[in-house]
C-alpha cells in the first residue's frame, strides 16, 4: 500500500475531517497548478475546478487503488471535470492524442513569451502532459491512466509539447516557424 493509500484508507475508515485535511494538503498544490494552467491563469475558474474535483474525488475515493499515488488520480478527475465544463460551455474539446501545433492558439506577442503565457497558449493536451510530467514528476503510466491515453501517446505528446514550448519561449522567429508548420498540417 502506498503512503497515499494508507491516508485514504484512514480517512475512509474514520471519515474525520482531520484525516481528509492531511490528504488535501498533500495534493492541493499540484492540483491547483494543474487547474490554474488548464484555466489559462483564470483564478476563479481554476478555483471552481478544484472544488468540483475534490467533491467528485471524495465521492469516488473508495475506488482509489491504494497502491497508487493520489496526485495522478486527482489530476485525472480534474482533467475530466475540465473537459465536461468545456463541453457544457460549448467549447471545442480535443483529446490529448489530437493535440498538435496546428491547434496552437497563436501568440500575438512580438517578443518571447514568458513561461505561463507560453504554456497557456499550448493545446490542452500538451499542457496537461507537460505539467504532469515535467513539473509534477508523474510517470507516463500514471499520466496515461489519468488522461485516458496510452503511455506511448503521453511520451509523444510530451516530446511535441516540449518542442512547441521551447520555440514559444525563444521568440518571434521560432514562433513564425511554428505557425508555418501549423498551417502546413491544416
Amino acid at each position, binding site marked *: 500500500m502506498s503512503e497515499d493509500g494508507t491516508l485514504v484508507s484512514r480517512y475512509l475508515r*474514520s*471519515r*474525520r*475531517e*482531520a*484525516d*481528509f*485535511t492531511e490528504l*488535501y*494538503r498533500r495534493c*492541493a*498544490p499540484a*492540483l*491547483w*497548478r494543474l487547474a*490554474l*494552467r488548464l484555466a489559462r491563469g483564470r*483564478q476563479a475558474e481554476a*478555483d471552481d475546478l*478544484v*472544488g468540483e474535483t*475534490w*467533491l467528485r474525488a*471524495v465521492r469516488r475515493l473508495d475506488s482509489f487503488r491504494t497502491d497508487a499515488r493520489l496526485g495522478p488520480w486527482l489530476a485525472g478527475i480534474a482533467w475530466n471535470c475540465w473537459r465536461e465544463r468545456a463541453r457544457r460551455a460549448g467549447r471545442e474539446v480535443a483529446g490529448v492524442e489530437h493535440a*498538435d*501545433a*496546428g491547434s496552437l492558439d497563436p501568440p500575438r506577442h512580438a517578443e518571447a513569451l514568458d*513561461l*505561463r503565457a507560453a*504554456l497557456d497558449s499550448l493545446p490542452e493536451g500538451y499542457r496537461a502532459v*507537460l*505539467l504532469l*510530467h*515535467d*513539473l509534477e514528476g508523474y510517470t507516463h503510466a500514471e499520466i496515461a491512466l489519468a488522461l485516458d491515453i496510452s503511455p506511448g501517446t503521453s511520451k*509523444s505528446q*510530451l*516530446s*511535441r509539447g*516540449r*518542442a*512547441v*514550448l*521551447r*520555440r514559444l519561449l525563444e521568440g518571434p522567429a521560432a514562433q513564425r516557424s*511554428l505557425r508555418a*508548420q*501549423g498551417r502546413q*498540417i491544416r
Partner: protein
Amino acid sequence: MNDIEPHRDSAPTDLSALLEDAPPPDQEARVRAALRARGKFAAPRAWRAAAAAAVVFAAGIAVGVAWERDRAADRSASPRPIESGLAGAEPAWALVLVDGPDWAAAADPAEADRRVAALSRWARRLAAAGRLVIAEELGPPAATLSAEGQATPETFGLGIFLVRAPDAEAAAAIAVTSPHLDHGGRVVVQPVVPH
C-alpha cells in the same frame, strides 16, 4: 505527420517557476466546508464526545428549565400576559456559535475535550447567573437551498445558546465570554422576536 523534431527538443523543460503558484489561502476552508455540508465528515469529536457534550447541553437545558420554572413562579405572583414560551421580563437572545477554520481543524481528541469542558463551564456559569434558557447542539446542514437549487454554505452554526439579557449590549457582553471565541470561532448574537 505534425512531428516538430521531437528528438532535438526532448530535454525536460524547466517549469519550476510554476511552483510559486500557490492555491488561494481560503481554498482549503471552502473545500472542507463544501464537503462538511454534504455530510462527508463524521461529526467533530468536540460535539461527538457525547458524554461531555451531553453534559454541556443537558445541564443547560435542565438549568434553563429550572430557571424558567422560577420565572413562571414570579409571573404567577405578578401576573403578566402570556405571549410565547419565551416571553419574560427580559428579552431573549440567541447566541449562535458559528464555525471558524481553527475550530474545524480541532481534531486532536484531547484538545476537543478541553474545548467541550470550557463550553461546559461557560454554560454552568450562565445557568448559575440565571441567564441560560436553553442550549442545543446543531449538526451540519442537512441541506442549503437557494432559488438556483442547492447552495454551499461557507459557515454554519455549531450550537445555539438562548440567554436572557436586558439589551443587545448585555447580550453581546455575555457572548464575548464564550470560549468558542478562543478557538477561531465566532458567536452571532440575534434577538428572539416576541410574538
